[in-house]
């Protein structure tokens, strides 16, 4: 394993977000207040029923005042937002398209909920926006360390200094972290902000 590994194909690539016109109904999950993106999407809503779940305090404040979707659920943090998302998905019907907007940690947790209810990738569109901070799965102790902005991070579970690799698991919604100095204890590259 090496810090200088080339880019890895499991890392998600996000394409510009558009409504999926093949969908019969639509559910937009917002976990970051990307104003230009949200304004563009909501100015031209898709055909069929549209529900919006907001899981971010700033977006909740702003969209609560400006947007008139058929169904609008405003939550001020991610965990409440994910609960609201689940309660809608649980009762939803085939034909639904799910749009996930926000940091990777939020949108992949949401995608995990959708997968539990049998949604497959053609029904879900993801777009990373807001912080680039990464959720990191420690391969040694399996703890998840969230909000990682640096190339190295101390594991929240076992305390080892992990290198954050570009290898990404959609099921875990996380990047892989492994001990950086396992070959030469104490030898570590400088810590840099890599995921602002």
């Amino acid at each position, binding site marked *: 394993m090496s810090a200088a590994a080339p880019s890895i194909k499991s890392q998600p690539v996000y394409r510009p977000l558009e409504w999926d016109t*093949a969908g019969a109904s639509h559910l937009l999950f917002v976990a970051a207040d990307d104003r230009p993106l949200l304004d563009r999407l909501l100015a031209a809503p898709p055909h069929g029923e549209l529900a919006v779940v907001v899981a971010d305090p700033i977006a909740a404040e702003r969209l609560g005042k400006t947007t008139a979707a058929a169904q609008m659920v405003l939550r001020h943090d991610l965990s409440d937002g994910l609960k609201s998302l689940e309660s809608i998905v649980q009762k*939803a*019907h*085939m*034909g*639904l398209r799910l749009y996930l907007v926000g940091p990777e940690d939020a949108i992949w947790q949401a995608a995990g909920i*959708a997968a539990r*209810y049998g949604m497959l990738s053609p*029904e879900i569109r993801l777009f990373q926006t807001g912080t680039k901070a990464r959720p990191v799965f420690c391969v040694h102790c399996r703890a998840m360390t969230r909000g990682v902005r640096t190339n190295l991070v101390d594991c929240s579970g076992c305390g080892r200094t992990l290198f954050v690799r570009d290898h990404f698991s959609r099921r875990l919604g996380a990047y892989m972290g492994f001990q950086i100095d396992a070959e030469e204890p104490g030898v570590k590259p400088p810590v840099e902000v890599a995921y602002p």
Partner: protein
Amino acid sequence: MNAEIALVLSRIVELAPGIREFWLTREDGGELPAYSGGSHIVLSLPLPGGIRRNPYSLVGDPNDHQKWRIAVRRQEQSRGGSAWLHESAREGQSIKVSMPANLFPMARLARHHILVAGGIGVTPIVSHARELARLGESFEVHYAHRAPEFGVLTNELRQLAGSDLYCYVASRNETIDFRELLNGRPLGTHAYLCGPQGMVEDFHKTARDMGWPDTHVHSERFLAPPPGEAFTVRLARSARELVVKSDQSMLEALEAAGTEPPFLCRGGACGQCETEVVACDSTIQHNDLFLSQAERDSGRKIMPCVSRLSGGCITINL
């Protein structure tokens, strides 16, 4: 080379006018491998003009190691295969059969399964129903046929699906309304259909119109190789030339000439017999369900099991 085993046509049952069921067993009475619901086998039928290889869905219990069952309807436009099975096949006869392959598998992550059968398309639906019942999955079966006597596997389906079997008999003016069938289904529902081409197309179109993604809608259909003008095939690697007769598929002509291109479905669906085109002085009639439009437009590929030329000559990389 495709693996084939010699089996015995151990039993022939008349299920309905023009529909026969065949049991295939091992000559030595030994066990057959298990298979997955939705699998088919390819029978090598000894027609007077040569071997005709046709795919048939396995019907029945995938865990039955004693026999494989198929049900065959006599096709009005038969190229000889179904006619042979209905007129010439005899109990006790030996027949070569491929190992099972599955181009119509169960979606194991589904939360609910809707199985739809049209006519003789019921065969893979029965094997799916049996697997789903064994696994304790949530499923329902919708079976449409022409008249009461053609509901040949209704009893078997009733045992598996109970009150979740719905029959639609055309002679009683009963039809399946796909829009109603697919409406208001929970996320994670998968729908499967095996039936005539028009029914398959309607089903897919309705599902798409209602926002179902293709990943949740499964269908099986094998195309019979359509007849056409005779044409010439040149084999680039072995520098040979052969003629495909008008009632023969290109794959059959290649086999008759002693080459053994790989195949699985022989019905334009699986992609296994994809062959590279080196040159072509005529128009390729692409009849398969496999090649993309871009691949067809490139003129570089052909599926010899169902596709052919409107006369002329094609050179292939074989």
